[in-house]
């Protein structure tokens, strides 16, 4: 069942939480709303759920305009960050509650509850109360309560944030499998980009109430729409270099305080058509390496830098370089890593460079 936000805005007094938000979610799609706190992702979700009223705009579920419908008439299910289980009811009753509110027959209720419980491994726990369950178990009850009604869409508000790291990764996999099994439409809110990248078929990156970019994980990673997305996605984060655009004999280059970037033909064309005096270049840590590892073609942006901190992650090493008064992070292979304090020559792979307009923040082209 499709979901559609049509220019939805929400203001709380003077604060604008959501501005002109438009998004289409196709039937069965798993879309993640990703962004830092305050970006409006939870607001958008709650407006879809019917728990908040939009200040402007409309919301459609399965083609119907549900903007004026109360929460229980929208046929959606929600998994809350703190699970919101009814503390005085057993697991069985918690799951059954929604069905009973809709006056479903007792046998039907029983069947549905047991099915949902089975799907989530809760069959042994049906008689317990939430207070007697662990965090992970409570989470599954919340999920069971959501799926038992076979709603048109599932809304999830940071459901994994209260779980410890190991449980989080396990549950992530379970959610992916569940989605595949149920083939349901899911709208998932999180601030954790790992969750977003691994689970979402499409990711909607948001910031300060505005939608920044919608695309697959690969899209937002390799082709970020603007500086915010480029910086937000990817860990360790992308490094940015701001410099003046220069043209020498038809070849364009960018001169930043510490590095001189000579651009390829394609990049030069892009830059020329943008007609900018200044540009920001972005390079991901994996595209910055020791100069010697760059063989023949080399890279046309070499620079010396002192290594500040070396973090070993076992399979690779993150080296933080001091360059021109700021830090630049690079990912290097684990064998024979350099040491902190050394000054070595580094280079950047030109092919993967991204160019941004410093004024608007948008990526070129």
């Amino acid at each position, binding site marked *: 069942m499709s979901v559609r936000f049509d*220019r939805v805005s929400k203001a709380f007094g003077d604060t604008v939480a959501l501005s002109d938000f438009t998004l289409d979610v196709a039937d069965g799609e798993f879309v993640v709303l990703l962004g830092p706190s305050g970006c409006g992702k939870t607001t958008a979700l709650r407006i879809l759920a019917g728990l908040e*009223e*939009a*200040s402007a705009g409309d919301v459609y579920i399965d083609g119907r305009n549900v903007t004026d419908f109360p929460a229980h008439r929208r046929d959606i299910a929600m998994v809350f960050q703190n699970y919101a289980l009814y503390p005085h009811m057993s697991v069985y009753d918690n799951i059954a509650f929604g069905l009973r509110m809709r006056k479903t027959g007792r046998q039907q209720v029983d069947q549905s509850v047991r099915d949902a419980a089975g799907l989530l491994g809760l069959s042994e726990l049906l008689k317990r109360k939430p207070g007697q369950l662990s965090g992970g178990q409570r989470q599954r009850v919340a999920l069971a309560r959501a799926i038992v009604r076979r709603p048109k869409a599932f809304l999830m508000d940071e459901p994994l944030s209260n779980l410890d790291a190991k449980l989080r990764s396990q549950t992530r996999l379970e959610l992916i499998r569940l989605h595949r099994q149920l083939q349901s439409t899911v709208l998932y809110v999180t601030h954790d980009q790992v969750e977003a990248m691994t689970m979402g078929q499409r990711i909607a990156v948001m910031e300060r109430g505005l939608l920044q970019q919608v695309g697959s994980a690969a899209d937002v990673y390799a082709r970020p729409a603007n500086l915010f997305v480029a910086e937000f996605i990817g860990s360790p984060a992308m490094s940015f270099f701001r410099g003046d655009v220069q043209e020498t004999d038809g070849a364009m280059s960018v001169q930043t305080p510490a590095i001189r970037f000579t651009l390829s033909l394609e990049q030069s064309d892009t830059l020329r058509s943008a007609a900018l005096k200044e540009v920001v270049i972005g390079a991901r840590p994996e595209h910055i390496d020791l100069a010697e590892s760059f063989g023949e073609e080399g890279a046309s942006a070499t620079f010396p830098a002192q290594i500040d901190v070396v973090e070993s992650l076992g399979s690779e090493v993150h080296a933080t370089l001091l360059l021109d008064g700021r830090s630049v992070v690079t990912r290097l292979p684990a064998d024979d890593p350099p040491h902190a304090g050394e000054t070595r020559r580094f280079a950047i792979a030109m092919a993967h460079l991204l160019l941004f307009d410093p004024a608007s923040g948008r990526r070129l082209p």
Partner: protein
Amino acid sequence: MSRMKHVRRALVRAVLSLPSYALLIASAAVILFPLYVTTVDSLQPLQKLLSFPPDLWPDTPRWANYRSAMTDIPMPRYMLNSLIMASVITIGQVTTAALAAYAFSFMRFPLRTPLFFVFLSTMMVPWEISIIPNFQTMQRLNWLDTYQGLTLPFLATAFGTFLLRQHFMTLPRELKDAADIDGYGDLRFLLFVVIPLSRAALATLAVFSFLQAWNQYLWPLLVTNDPDMRTVQIGIAALRDEEVQRTNVVLAGTVIALLPMLVLVIAFQRFLVRGLTAGAVKG
């Protein structure tokens, strides 16, 4: 299109809240009604009070009634007695409770837990059970019709000790460790570190104690016979027997007796709520 719809929705919501306001106002009116009638009658000349149907609005308020209440009836004396009694009890309760709560939270000593339960158990013994022996005690000590008689039995409070202990337990243990290293003794630590950090809890207890002490009835009734020692509560209750012909002045006295507590409760609502719910809301 959307903008108009949203404005209209806001209007609908405002209209829908009207019944709520109607209920709120009606309920408030019922609650305030006794106070309203009393205030009105306190401002009436006597004939109006005895008339039927009762007059519900003072056309010419007789503020003189209030002056009479303060001069003809010993209201000032009653107020003074109440003030002294309530103040002494409040200070006493806050002091003994703070001292005991400190011991129960920051100090280690044998039998600490059993002793705490003994404290709590005193809350199980309602005051009314102890009145006869306590009265006899006061009689024997010749402390009837004295301030000691009025205040002494109430200077310790298990509820207050419990309240403050719960609060003290939320203060970090490291504070005490740092004080130990610095050479602070227990008393100095209590006075200069714990107390300043517990202002809210202390205020809660103080408001609570003062209110209860000011409003007491049974004990002051038993322990005072001399009209000069009567507290405000006993005073106005006695007045209703003695001054039957001057009901309006008696009512003025009642309003005067009520006013300080009303102001206290409204001004310190927050603290009062916290105190009353100390045992109620289990999380």
